[in-house]
């Protein structure tokens, strides 16, 4: 069975995870990334997902997935129970993103965090010219029904981890599925992926 194409940010994370690692995928959806990690890297990968239909689908693929809310149920995992935690496209949906980051680095020494960059030029232009909350390719849902309650930019995230004394081991910025440079990321990145580690 050939693996389905991974979303660009997930493909990037999958490529970085070392073989044999113990991984927790938070907000794992139907387990696409988990399955890729298991099949290609023999990682011991577990998942946490809020939507029961997704959980059922992932369990049906033979994955170990627990239904729960990233914000509350991450507390159930003991310290250092994983080598790597993955939080993809979930940070901006949480009530307290800062606390989730603390939890990530409690359960694992390193974590991948990916989020849509709210300072992308399309978003800036939409706000500047339209004066309305942007509805873009990456943020396709109107303000009143978007799950994204804490919009965050590349610079915001850099500031937050600096304040917390968290190390950024690597960062990747994507525009569509193409990489964009560190310097231009604030304007040009649609997606940002950070590999953070305890300071």
């Amino acid at each position: 069975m050939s693996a389905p194409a991974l979303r660009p940010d997930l493909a990037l994370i999958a490529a970085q995870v070392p073989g044999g690692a113990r991984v927790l995928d938070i907000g794992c959806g139907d387990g696409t990334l988990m399955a890729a990690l298991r099949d290609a890297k023999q990682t011991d990968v577990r998942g946490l997902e809020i939507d029961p239909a997704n959980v059922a689908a992932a369990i049906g693929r033979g994955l170990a997935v627990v239904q729960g809310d990233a914000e509350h149920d991450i507390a159930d995992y003991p310290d250092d129970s994983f080598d790597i935690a993955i939080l993809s496209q979930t940070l901006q949906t949480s009530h307290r993103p800062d606390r989730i980051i603390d939890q990530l680095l409690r359960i694992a020494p390193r974590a991948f965090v990916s989020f849509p960059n709210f300072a992308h030029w399309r978003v800036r232009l939409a706000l500047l010219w339209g004066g309305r909350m942007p509805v873009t390719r990456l943020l396709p849902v109107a303000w009143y029904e978007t799950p994204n309650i804490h919009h965050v930019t590349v610079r915001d995230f850099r500031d937050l981890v600096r304040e917390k004394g968290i190390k950024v081991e690597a960062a990747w910025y994507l525009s569509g599925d193409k990489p964009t440079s560190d310097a231009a990321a604030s304007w040009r990145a649609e997606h940002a992926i950070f590999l953070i580690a305890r300071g």
Partner: protein
Amino acid sequence: MASRLQTDRHNQIALDRPLVLDSGAQLAKPTIAFEAYGTLNAARDNAILICHALTMDQYVASTHPVTGKPGWWSKVVRPGGVIDTDRYHVICANVIGSCLGSSGPASIDPATGSPFAMTFPVVTIGDMVRAQAMLLDQLGIGRLHAVVGGSMGGMQALAWAAHYPDRVDRALVIASAARHSAQNIAFHEVGRQAIMADPDWQGGSYYGSGRVPVKGLSVARMAAHITYLSEAGLTEKFGRQLQDREAKTFGFEADFRIESYLRHQGISFVDRFDANSYLYITRAMDYFDLADPHGGRLADAFRHSPVRFGLVSFDSDWLYPTAESRRIVQALHGAGAQASFVELSSPFGHDAFLLDSPEMWRLIAGFLEAGR
């Protein structure tokens, strides 16, 4: 009254060794009744043990000998089904202490030639599982592809994983808990007291007296049955509808449909269940707490367990609520064990696990197939 329960024949074997019980007592060579479906393959790695709930039995997929009804999970366990008997060898054994062929209080005590009644030793969930393990030994089944159970069956599945981690590949625990809560014990005690308060119970020695504690066991069943449902489910099914009448009678007949329904549930239960078995099995459930031997740390019951765990709860189940499943998941995480968990939505309360639930069925099939 010669109950069908005592005269019916079941597929059963006598264990070849004594069953040493958690209480310290032992049963010399107890009988275990079981049903089996499908064929054990040459590699002997396709066996699935299904553990039944309190008032269920081994007739998971075959016609019940007393009621004539189809097996309690016959939609799930069948050729080509969710638990596919074309591919798996499925075994379901009547628990020790029960009354459909396995040794229990209604069985003859070889020492006296009379039924044990209340001299039958108190058994535990652990004892039920130990007896099943001995049965599998005798059937030549060393390892289980899966152990599956709902409610008390889920407790047995957990106990299997905790006590025989090397004999179980995966454990599927549905609508269950790792311990009996005070509320669970309380409801059971109401049922037991109802049985014991019935003059026909006669201290448990009613076998051969021509009388059985019909009223007591019925009331026990009625009270328990309420705990298997949900308020929303009861309201939807019965509301305040009257039973076969236009107006209230200003008396104490079963005016309401829910009363009539419960009375029927109570009375029909007496035909297929032994009152003393009800006492013993509810006691076994009350004593169940997997964390107890580990100073209250449930995680220690599963430390480095190689078993894959799957847990399912239902949002309207207040008997074994989702929080109990989450507590197990939390412990499994702490133990480093592989756990999956999902809470399914259903209006039907605890009984949801026995009802048609395509969502649960897909999940069971996926969990059992994974990695095969």
